[in-house]
């Protein structure tokens, strides 16, 4: 069985092309079923960054042709952007994809779930089952043994991670969101995902504040009265389009005595800025604007790229293990034939022997043990030879020596 991969990704195709080849879960499952052919296996991995078809079939040429036809049927202009990989290269590619090494943001975590979903929806057999299980293992291992997926890769996740640097666990921390824009909404959601509570929403238009507050289960407060919440808030996110400061140093300074030394973290996502930079100079107050957050993200992405080098080594090791396993499949029929022939001889000889029931049981046990011990080493050696690319020669030799030619 050969493995074939035909696909298109963000490396070669712009989003206008990729979006036309994107498939939802049901469509991907249906396409995988159609691509299996008579005795093959197929998995369709479709994300916003790639659509890839993995096929295991006796004929690599047929499989490749089927995959190309299927992708070009989705979008005829994909032709020049398609890439084709086989066996070891296809396996290594999938392992890199699962580890997030082929993603736009190195180490992004979503892809591992997407690979799992594709595997679950695919029409897998022994080859692709093993390939995808090992890819998922490689992806997890790369994330556990390196820091490739640890640091934040977006401004909103960096803001949440910085809040954790101040407070540790964010569970129960109260957040005041100033402005009802998209950026503030993203940052708020990120904080909520880490356990923080959006306690108040302040906005210029009350209707929008009430709408957003209803979504987060929080209270809407008028913009001019938000200073009152500073005594109880832990994090303030501001992203309005107001021309001046929404919070100035004096207002924050007035709120500090009531806070009894508890720190206060400010996230200013607005341009022009909403929060007076002087707030950062106050004791226990930390203010990060959009430039500060972007600098943090740039640094963490650089860190991810450094970690990616270590992850590449892990992935290469896993790909090598898969290659060895796949190569060992070449000798499996010869090993199976050898064992079948040996067992056939054993059974025939036992049949001829004149033994009572208990003697027969004992003889069966002994001869089976002898057979297993005798064939154990040749089996191991043949698998090792297969991994070292000599498997076919060994298999031929075994077939010749034991007269197994007719059983191919």
């Amino acid at each position: 069985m050969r493995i074939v991969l035909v696909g298109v990704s963000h490396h070669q195709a712009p989003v206008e092309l990729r979006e036309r080849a994107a498939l939802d879960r049901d469509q991907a499952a249906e396409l995988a079923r159609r691509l299996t052919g008579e005795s093959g296996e197929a998995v369709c991995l479709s994300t916003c960054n790639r659509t890839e078809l993995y096929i295991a079939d006796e004929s690599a040429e047929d499989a490749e042709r089927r995959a190309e036809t299927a992708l070009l049927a989705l979008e005829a202009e994909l032709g020049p952007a398609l890439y084709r990989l086989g066996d070891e290269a296809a396996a290594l590619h999938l392992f890199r994809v699962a580890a997030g090494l082929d993603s736009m943001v190195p180490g992004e975590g979503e892809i591992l779930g997407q690979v799992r979903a594709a595997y679950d929806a695919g029409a897998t057999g022994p080859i692709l089952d093993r390939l995808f299980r090992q890819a998922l293992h490689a992806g997890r291992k790369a994330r556990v043994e390196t820091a490739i997926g640890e640091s934040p890769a977006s401004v909103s996740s960096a803001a949440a991670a910085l809040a954790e640097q101040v407070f540790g666990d964010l569970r129960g921390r109260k957040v005041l969101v100033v402005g009802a824009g998209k950026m503030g909404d993203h940052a708020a959601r990120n904080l909520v995902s880490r356990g923080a509570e959006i306690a108040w929403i302040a906005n210029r238009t009350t209707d929008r504040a009430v709408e957003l507050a209803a979504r987060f289960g929080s209270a809407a407060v008028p913009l001019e009265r938000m200073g009152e919440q500073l005594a109880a808030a832990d994090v303030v996110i501001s992203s309005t389009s107001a021309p001046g400061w929404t919070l100035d140093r004096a207002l924050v300074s007035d709120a500090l005595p009531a806070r009894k030394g508890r720190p206060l973290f400010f996230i200013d996502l607005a341009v022009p800025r909403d929060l007076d930079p002087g707030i950062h100079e106050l004791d226990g107050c930390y203010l990060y604007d959009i430039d500060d957050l972007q600098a943090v993200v740039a640094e963490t992405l650089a860190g991810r790229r450094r970690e990616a080098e270590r992850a590449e080594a892990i992935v290469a090791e896993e790909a090598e293990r898969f290659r060895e396993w796949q190569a060992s499949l070449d000798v499996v029929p010869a090993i199976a034939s050898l064992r079948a022939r040996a067992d056939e001889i054993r059974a025939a000889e036992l049949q001829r022997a004149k033994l009572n029931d208990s003697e027969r049981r004992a003889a069966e046990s002994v001869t089976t043990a002898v057979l297993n011990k005798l064939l154990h080493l040749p089996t191991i050696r043949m698998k090792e030879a297969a991994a070292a690319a000599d498997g076919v020669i060994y298999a031929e030799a075994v077939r010749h020596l034991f007269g197994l030619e007719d059983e191919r």
Partner: protein
Amino acid sequence: MAELLFWLALLAYGEAALAYVGEARHPGRAGRLATWGVRIGWLVQTALLAVQAARADGFPWSTWAASLNLFVWLVVGAYLIWGCQVRFRLLGLAVLPLAAVLFALAHAGGGTSVHGHSRYSSLFLVLHVGLVLLAFAGFTVAAGLSALYLWQERRLKRREATILSVRAPALARLDELSARTIAVALPALTLGIAVGIARLRDRGGGVDALMAVTVVTWAVYSSYLVLRVGTGLRGRRAAYLLLAGFVLVAVVRLALPVTHFA
């Protein structure tokens, strides 16, 4: 036997101190090596203390150097309670080199060897020394936490782009742990001082410089707790106050014992 245990423990502490340096540069395996160094070193030192206790006639840590040995054990023990967590590994960078140096100093002063005779004959003295050392160990760890707090706070104030690259405990957690440590250490010091005063009354004698500075130290840490509860003293100012208290601890521990032991 005691000599062998000393060298093994020192080796483990030294390995941990070096590994913490490696951890600060490249987080990962070095941190795990450091953690194991601390654990093994502390267990070996525990064995050393057990050997000393078994072979001594009375309290085996009655000399200045021997009490330093016990002090190191208490400091590392206090650190071990939560210092092995990944986020607190940086604290090891402050605690373990100090522990290794003090341990070597204790050895140089003869504090890790086995003595048959103890200068402390009464339970009062054993309690006095034990409680004061326990309190000082707590203050030392609190100083490490405060130093880490100031370092982390400075990075946040400077808005360093690399702030998320190095794993450090959160400010609130450091602040809270410092306070908890003091809340345990201060009562120990209070009791230790009380036992010392009781003995002083019983036997007579004057107040020496070490006693005076110890009382000042107690006042500093007491004011820390009072201000924390009363006015909400937290953050940078609280960390500076704890470091000031630690300066007094260092003076009491290293500079003045000669007057007291004499």
